């Protein structure tokens, strides 16, 4: 069957708008409401199978499918890029089953589904970021059992998480956690931020937009409502650090203040850097927005 067959064409459509049936969508929305009401708390939901493989964004996809309406403008990115495998795949499915307009310009989007990045241009009030989460449980680092991690969250029993950071510093001289750095949300629950790079975490803190996080395989949704504090776990005397791109700039748009991917030339093997956020980089090159300077310039 081709995706075209999924289109709600006149007379002959076989699937509901946005694939999932309305009852299932309502169930996801109920879980999302609870998630928004308890920032950072992982809310279980049924998470039926979708035509996309588990681990490929089914959590984010269910959140998007349960929220999307005909007037939404959709942007889908995978690790910052609109053209990457996962983004292409999900976009095709959503367009085929809804017919909504899509965009590569994050400013235009009402719904932005992403795997592991937030756009470089801060999102604004009214926009919703939907993040695909492979492993929602931040405490899995220190505890394999689900029964136990749920108890730990309920009791605010986070000492073991902190101990692992202490040991990290003792052994490595610094906290070696990279992407998906654990954060405390609203001063309460510890949350795994998708795996966003550390670079994006300041954009989650006191953001204007709503962030919804969906983990399909693990059957959990959670949320960061607008204007909510998201603090990376840090010691008072060892402040949290984002990735450093000091002295580097994008080979395409010249930005020095964006998250840069390291790429190697196919022929010469020579390394260079380009913006991970391809939509932003395109806008800079088209002269629509200015290049971004380093944050501390």
């Amino acid at each position, binding site marked *: 069957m081709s995706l075209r067959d999924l289109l709600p064409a006149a007379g002959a459509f076989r699937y509901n708008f946005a694939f999932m049936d309305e009852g299932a969508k309502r169930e996801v929305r109920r879980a999302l409401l609870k998630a928004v009401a308890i920032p950072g708390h992982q809310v279980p939901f049924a998470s039926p199978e979708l035509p996309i493989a588990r681990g490929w964004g089914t959590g984010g996809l269910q959140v998007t499918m349960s929220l999307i309406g005909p007037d939404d403008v959709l942007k889908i990115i995978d690790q910052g890029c609109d053209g990457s495998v996962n983004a292409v795949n999900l976009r095709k499915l959503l367009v085929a089953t809804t017919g909504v307009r899509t965009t590569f310009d994050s400013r235009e989007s009402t719904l932005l589904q992403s795997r592991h990045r937030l756009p470089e241009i801060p999102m604004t009030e009214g926009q919703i970021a939907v993040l695909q989460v492979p492993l929602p449980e931040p405490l899995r680092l220190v505890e394999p059992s689900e029964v136990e991690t749920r108890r730990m969250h*309920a*009791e*605010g*029993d986070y*000492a*073991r998480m*902190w*101990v692992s950071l*202490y*040991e990290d*510093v*003792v052994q490595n001289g610094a906290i070696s956690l990279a992407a998906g750095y654990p954060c405390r949300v609203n001063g309460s629950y510890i949350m795994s931020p998708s795996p966003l790079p550390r670079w994006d975490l300041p954009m989650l803190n006191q953001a204007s937009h709503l962030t919804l996080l969906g983990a399909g395989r693990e059957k959990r949704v959670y949320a960061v409502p607008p204007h909510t504090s998201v603090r990376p776990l*840090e*010691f*008072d*005397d*060892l402040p949290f650090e984002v990735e450093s791109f000091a002295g580097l700039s994008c080979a395409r748009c010249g930005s020095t203040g964006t998250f840069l991917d390291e790429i190697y030339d196919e022929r010469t093997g020579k390394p260079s850097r380009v913006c991970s956020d391809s939509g932003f980089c395109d806008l800079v090159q088209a002269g629509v927005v200015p290049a971004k300077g380093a944050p501390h310039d």
Partner: protein
Amino acid sequence: MTDSSVTERSVVLSARNIGKRYGLGCDACEEETGPDRGTNVCPRCGSIIALRGVSFDLREAEILGIVGESGSGKSTLVQCIYFDVEATSGELRLRDHDPNDDVLRLARNRKRRIRASLMGMVYQNPLRGLRVDITSGANVAEKLLEAEVFHFARIRARAGELLAKTEIPASYIDALPRTLSGGMQQRIQIAKALANNPPLVLLDEVTSGLDVSVQARVLDLIRELQHELAISLIVVSHDMGVIRLLADRTMVLKNGCVVEQGLTDQILEDPQHAYTQLLVHSTL
């Protein structure tokens, strides 16, 4: 320290009618168990009445000894106080917490905070109180982190200071407890229990698993630290020698009930209850 000075000091912990039952319980439990019946298993419903109606006050810098044979409920009692075991009845109030709160009835997250900042515990088996897969320093750090001390350099310094105080070589700070001797493990537990300067520390048969020579040194250490820091201790032991050495006051438990309590000297010299007499004479 003299007896009169103890009674003038403030009450750090006040326990009233603490009870712990395993099983559903029935009307006969009360009647059919206890020291007079010589059992704590209810013959009708099979429930175990591990503790019944235990009340006492613990004053500042006082050492209370709890003795009894195994199954008397003495370990259960300190575990109820430390919230490891949920008491089925009774009330517990702490001087350094809101006196309106019966802390046994608080939500688990609040109990956890009280336990982190106001109590320390040293278990008979160091493997229960320590995590063997993290370093000695991290074990002490855990207690500080539980009390939300998040300054790395200060945590590190405090861990070093406590290990020194408990006579652990400084190089052991980054060693795994699993590689250390039982005596060393017990010292790390003590260091961890003292991490947040708690007003109250519970010691459950702390020397039972140790060699006799090591026992004496650990007991000396406990006595010195208690003196220096003026903390209140509850010392659980089946060993009258330990009680004689440490406790100002002693409570004798049998089949979950208090059969006698008073000044340690008095209890050792002139035991009133037949069971206490048996305990005292069997060890002299």
